[in-house]
């Protein structure tokens, strides 16, 4: 049996230069998905101001196809957790995430959303939204510049374009063995119940480098 004829990237770009568009379903699908990532209109703290700045004329997130900030989670593809997630707010953030339709992505923007940041030692702040929601891109900074958000969005687009649409590496929404539902924590007497989702929150056991 002959193997499938393959075409290298150089040959493909050479053909494109001559006006012949040769593509795969996967590439077309990922191209469409990665260039129309609609964020949820949702801000929690000061990082949201930078997110708003990124959507305005100077930085213009519309150049990346993400200008449509949707007021409803049902129409959004991207949850930008921009700011401090208090323990009282965390259940609502996870509920919004659950209400978003697949394919959906999450960006943790700023120190607070990644780890709790300056409020890490406080009793009332969630130490990173990735305890409950699978985060695709982390943007460190306090707050990150609007360009940093755009860079994060570009990284997300790269990640989306690299996904395969079949096989075990396929994204969540194309598989049948994964659930798109994440348990919503409850605001208990002392802490969130449960304090983390062990399926999402995975700490590497290996000691840090150096």
């Amino acid at each position: 049996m002959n193997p499938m004829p393959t075409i290298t990237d150089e040959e493909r770009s050479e053909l494109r230069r001559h006006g012949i568009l040769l593509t795969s379903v996967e590439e077309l699908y990922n191209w469409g998905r990665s260039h129309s990532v609609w964020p949820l209109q949702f801000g929690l703290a000061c990082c949201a101001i930078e997110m708003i700045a990124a959507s305005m004329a100077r930085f213009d997130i519309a150049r990346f196809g993400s200008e449509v900030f949707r007021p409803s989670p049902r129409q959004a593809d991207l949850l930008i957790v921009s700011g401090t997630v208090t323990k009282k707010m965390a259940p609502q953030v996870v509920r919004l995430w659950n209400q978003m339709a697949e394919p959906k992505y999450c960006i943790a923007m700023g120190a607070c959303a990644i780890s709790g940041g300056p409020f890490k030692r406080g009793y009332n702040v969630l130490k990173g939204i990735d305890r409950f929601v699978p985060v695709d891109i982390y943007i460190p900074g306090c707050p990150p510049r609007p360009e940093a958000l755009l860079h994060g969005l570009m990284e997300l687009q790269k990640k989306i374009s690299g996904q395969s649409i079949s096989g075990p590496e396929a994204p969540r929404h194309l598989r049948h063995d994964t659930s798109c539902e994440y348990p919503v924590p409850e605001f208990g007497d002392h802490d969130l119940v449960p304090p983390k989702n062990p399926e999402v929150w995975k700490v590497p056991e290996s000691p840090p480098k150096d």
Partner: protein
Amino acid sequence: MLGTGLLQGLAVTAKNFAGSFHDPKRLTTVEYPEKKSVIPEAFRNFPFLVSENAEDPMGTLRCVACQICEKECPPQCIYIEKSKDKKPDASGKMQIYPAVFRIDSSVCMNCQICVEVCPFDAIKMDHVYEIATSERFETLLLDRHDLAKPNSYFHQIRPLEAAEVDGRLTAERKAAEEKAKAAALAKAALAAKPAAPAPAAPPKPPEQA
């Protein structure tokens, strides 16, 4: 009159829209990945460790692991372990160096307090902001190899501050050298003096300064 404010605002919008065709100043958008906006010198985004020499960054770190920044850091994102041995620093003095120096950039809030408390000008604020990543633990925890950047880089991003720091450091080193020289001379004079007039009485050993 009702609506004048609205009309004024729309007039500004129309002026900018029409003007952007012939006046490049009215094009406000920074085409980010291709062009980058000019960052002011005082912009700060994450600390880095200054090393004197680009070839041997670990050997020429200015940091002497005094741990003041670790204690002062408000979100406690710095972790330092002192070395057991000593290495000569830029002025040739034997100093402790950081065996482990980590900054968790997922916690750091860019407050610059570590820079302000550092008595050795060893830690400074960086200008890099394109650091988005999909790996939280591997890439956001920076160790001393990631943090070390040469003094020439510091000059590049903050020319004014770097010139001021370099001037101060050279003056300090010169003063220390002169002081050491003067102390050595005084010691030699003290050692030579009692030996000449009174050979009977054993001279006292000069006290350690």
